[in-house]
């Protein structure tokens, strides 16, 4: 066991913090907040991502052969944590897409997608959920029909995706489709990497409860916008197929160990634990009576300790990744504990702040620009997305504890 970062890692943390201080000016942060409102990352923020890529910080863990640093998962986490803390920016190289391409792509695909994703020239969004199936992805109906001959072999995609976060800024969609119309459930699915500028793709914004007014910078839960994506006879070259046709379920699972854990998930779950402590110490007149209330103190300590468990579970996941081991139940456990902790913290803070916890961004008398009120509107979302806590608990019980499936 070892519960510290190495000296080299701490030196890197200093370097990253200095970079952030120099680059994430008020102007840039405002630009990023606008970006979170669904209008792109804006001119001021874009150059900073280039600089981050130049330093390799968004690709520490990827193989050198594809533009990465071949470094450690722990180091990557440390850097991601700093960027997310400073500006709620996820710097990882391409979200779901890059790991899947590395795990299942052809050499040509790896060379094409990974370095470009690291340089942020390719940005994936994730085309999984459909209106009738969110958690149960094996019900996917979006159809891709293989057709054509010779050099023109291609797929024609028809259907709809929903809750496609960042579809409005992505260059590609990592698309789960049904290629075999006779298939059921997990069989007959495939993954296509589809450029978003392909004719026949329509993106329709879906506004969320966070949209009116938008949350302040630092709100960790809930984009103000997500999307529906419609596919109307979209022609996709066969070269966009990732892995084997019909093997889409396995392809989508491979390399997804980290989809439910890591710096982003950790910080959206625990950031308010820190914020409320710092606010209680801030000297705000409304904080003073709370700070000395033993009931508030007991609750703050309880939440803080729960937050430490979030951190240690995250470190456990990073340890497993770094060791090259496979998750059993640990990712699912983290995806239950951390989001539900975030909800507990959010609601407990609501009870501490009382009526002020209603006041959103832009309201007179609000607390920290309505940060906690916006959290109340959406913290629970994290218990739903990327696998609901119910499904995660099923996995823990079956995989982690070997409990039996219900008899049919």
């Amino acid at each position: 066991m070892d519960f510290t970062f190495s000296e080299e890692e701490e030196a890197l943390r200093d370097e990253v913090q200095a970079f952030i201080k120099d680059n994430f000016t008020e102007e840039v942060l405002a630009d990023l907040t606008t970006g979170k409102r669904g209008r792109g990352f804006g001119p001021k923020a874009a150059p900073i991502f280039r600089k981050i890529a130049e330093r390799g910080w968004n690709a520490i863990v990827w193989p050198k052969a594809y533009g990465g640093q071949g470094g450690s998962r722990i180091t990557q986490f440390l850097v991601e944590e700093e960027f997310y803390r400073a500006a709620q920016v996820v710097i990882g190289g391409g979200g779901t897409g890059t790991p899947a391409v590395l795990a299942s792509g052809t050499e040509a695909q790896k060379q094409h997608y990974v370095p470009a994703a690291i340089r942020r020239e390719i940005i994936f969004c994730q085309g999984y959920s459909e209106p009738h199936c969110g958690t149960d992805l094996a019900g996917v109906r979006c159809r891709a029909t293989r057709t054509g001959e010779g050099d023109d072999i291609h797929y024609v995609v028809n259907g709809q995706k929903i809750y496609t976060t960042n579809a409005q800024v992505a260059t590609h969609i990592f698309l789960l489709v049904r290629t075999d119309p006779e298939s059921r459930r997990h069989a007959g699915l495939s993954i296509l990497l589809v450029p978003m500028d392909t004719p026949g793709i329509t993106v329709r914004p879906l506004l969320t409860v966070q949209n009116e007014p938008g949350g302040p910078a630092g709100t960790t839960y809930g984009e103000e916008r997500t999307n529906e994506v419609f596919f109307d006879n979209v022609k996709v070259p066969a070269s966009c197929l990732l892995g084997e046709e019909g093997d889409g379920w396995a392809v989508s699972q491979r390399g997804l160990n980290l989809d439910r854990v890591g710096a982003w998930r950790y910080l959206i779950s625990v950031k308010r634990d820190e914020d409320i402590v710092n606010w209680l110490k801030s000297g705000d007149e409304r904080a003073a009576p709370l700070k000395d209330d033993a009931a508030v103190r007991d609750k703050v300590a309880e939440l803080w300790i729960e937050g430490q468990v979030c951190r240690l579970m995250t470190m456990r996941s990073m340890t497993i990744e770094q060791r090259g081991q496979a998750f059993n139940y640990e990712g699912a456990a983290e995806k239950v504990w951390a989001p539900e902790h975030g909800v507990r913290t959010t609601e407990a803070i609501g009870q501490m702040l009382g009526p002020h916890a209603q006041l959103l961004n832009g309201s007179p008398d609000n607390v920290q620009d309505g940060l906690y009120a916006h959290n109340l509107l959406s913290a629970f979302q994290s218990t739903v997305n990327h696998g609901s806590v119910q499904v995660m608990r099923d996995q823990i019980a079956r995989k982690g504890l070997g409990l039996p499936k219900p008899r049919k």
Partner: protein
Amino acid sequence: MDVLPDEQETLIQETAREFFAAESTPALVRAAEKDPSRYSAALWKKIADLGWLGISLPEDCGGQGLPLTYAGLLLEEAGRAIAPVPLHGTLVAALVLARHGSAAQRALLRQVVQGELILSFAVQGLQGAWSPAAEGLTGRAEGEYVVLNGSRTFVDGFRESGHCLVLYQAEGDGVAAALVDTTSAGMRGTDYVTTAKDSQARVDFDNVRVPKSALVGEPARGAAIARDLCDYAAALMTSQLAGATRRDMEFAVEYAGQREAFGQPIGAFQAIQHLCADMLIAVDGAELLVHEALWRLDQGLPASIEVSQAKAFAGDKCIFVARSAQQIHGGIGFMMEFDLQLWYRRIVAWSLRCGSVREHRQQVAAALLEQPGKVRLGMPLVPA
């Protein structure tokens, strides 16, 4: 002892439920959110026409003289339909005036019953504390006037109300209440932006001159009036909250019965079933507690602790229910174009209004621990 609604109570409740279901549609709620007044004048008129604004007001004020439990059931149903009307503020202020107001003030209640006069009330100071101690606003006697200085916060419906029932600290005289004309010089309302998108406001008082005729009750009765105001407000807020929460739970149950995943309606999964069972228990508990509190208030029995019990429980549990309803809905519940969030946003706000869980528990704890003698469940407590 019979803790369930009787036939007449059930009849009124069902009538109100049908009315609000038909009249307070999600489209109307959405329209009111965009309206500067934040309420539907048309719906308000219809409610007045049914006589419901006077449901628990005395007959000599133009009311129906029904027990306070009826007002509670009405608020539950209005809450159920998240009706965009200033019912809570108006009823609370009117009940206090009916009990403690001057003849002239009681005469105003006829206008209230007819829907021509909206009332609001103002209790909290800048700290947001829910307390009859009236901190944050002081009144200085000057001849035939009292001059108010300070602030009130979380005043719902202030902008549309003609009069606001204001608690303040009278110099040398303790807590007092005045029914202040909202157009008085020096009074300035600033709208809050709340999760409920409602009409709560901060009201600042800068040398607001209030004629002594506007004072409510004798000076010696100030504390009792303030206590009544807080009790009515917190109890009826709990009714409204419980009503909204029950509907929210029903949405989740309906959705769970229809939405399929893994080859089943999600409502067939035991995890969802047990969650829904806990939601039902929570709403039932809030409702039972507030019914008892309102019944005691109506009987003129000490009820402040029962009110605090109800609001503390509902403030804690209704958020649990509403959040669980969101969780059962998955992504769709989070979308603005889907109606569920209309309920969620209000349940969040209402659970925080008229006293936090923490504050109401403090009242209960003080009554338990600071009063002499042994306690026994079922035997009423007296506030410390």
